[in-house]
């Protein structure tokens, strides 16, 4: 019967959708991302050294206290402008332990070249 087939199909579809929804929720709960706040101002980050765990996603919330700065960590493949007056977020997920340098890549003045920091990724 075509009607019976449609009903079975609908039930299967609803079950699949529910599974996807709840599985996603459970995954998000298990993998809750850590948030680390970093402030930038001429010519430093605070903190300028952060420790994270390998394989655990981290959200960096970057704010500027003066002008536009940059945050660039090439080896982790993340960069963003840090605009004053807003929270700038980037997500990092390091798959390998080590020390990863980051730096300001928006030229901001006489101490720009010293505006650096590091992310220490531990096992």
């Amino acid at each position, binding site marked *: 019967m075509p009607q019976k087939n449609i009903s079975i199909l609908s039930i299967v579809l609803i079950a699949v959708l529910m599974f996807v929804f709840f599985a996603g929720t459970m995954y998000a709960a298990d993998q809750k991302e850590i948030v680390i706040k970093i402030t930038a101002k001429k010519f430093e980050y605070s903190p300028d050294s952060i420790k994270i765990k390998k394989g655990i996603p981290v959200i960096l919330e970057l704010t500027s206290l003066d002008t536009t700065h940059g945050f660039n960590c*090439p080896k982790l493949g993340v960069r963003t402008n840090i605009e004053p007056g807003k929270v700038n977020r980037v997500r990092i997920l390091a798959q390998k332990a080590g020390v990863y340098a980051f730096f300001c890549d928006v*030229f901001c003045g006489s101490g720009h070249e010293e505006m650096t920091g590091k992310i220490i990724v531990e096992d």
Partner: protein
Amino acid sequence: MDINRRGFIKLAGLGSAVFVLGTEFSSQAAEKEFYFVQLSDTHWGFNDAKYNPDSTGTLKKAIAAVNNFEIQPDFVVITGDITHTNDDPKERRKWLGEARDIINGLKVKDVKILPGEHDAALDNGEAYKEYFGKTYYTFDHKGVHFIAIDNVSDPTSSIGESQLQWLSDDLGKLKKDSRIVVFTHRPLFDLYPEWDWWTRDGAKAVDLLKPYNNVTVFYGHIHQENHHNTGLIAHHSAKSLIYQLPAPGSLPKRERIPWDPAKPYEGLGFRSVEAKTKNAEYFIKEFQIKKG
């Protein structure tokens, strides 16, 4: 050509090393040849004796050395960071003016100048332009098409879409085998992004240049020689005239190398580039600044 060649060898004898690109030497009289001098990263205004106790004299010594060449170059190019960063716009202009006055002491009056980020990134090149004019431009000289690219006036170390379009339009007028020399401040390739030794959209410029068979890039920024190829494009960075920086990635941080009293002016210098247009060869000669 022989007379010029001998003359060049004579002036090259004043330096300390020869780096030769290409192996073919043509003796055809019809070949056009000339030479230019590249100065870079003079950082006028920098004042820290730990790194250079002769910060006000080094650029002047380089200019005196060039003026003493028996055969004067066709032109001199200065590939950026003419001045050190100054957060005060008024003082920035003062330094730019002082640097311009010193550069005017060159016997050669054809001087091509490009900005570095220390000159231009704090005000998008506004003050720089008041003293030195356009930040990107082209010119032709004895069969070579020269392109000066500005990858510093944008504080994000980008060339920018409008300048890339300008570059594309300019290249579109050339033949694939045209002799092309690019002057710029930052490396157009990712030399060492961790130390800001890159151009954010440099790959776009390299892609535009890639179809051309004879492209050579001369740049500054990293305060040392570096020779690198991206495909057929050769990239050569120049020494500074103020302080040395370490080799890419050789230290945990990019820090200036302190002055060594036992080896004054070590690593500080400039270069001459002899262009042989027939084979698009460039013979680079490095000169170190000497005491006295």
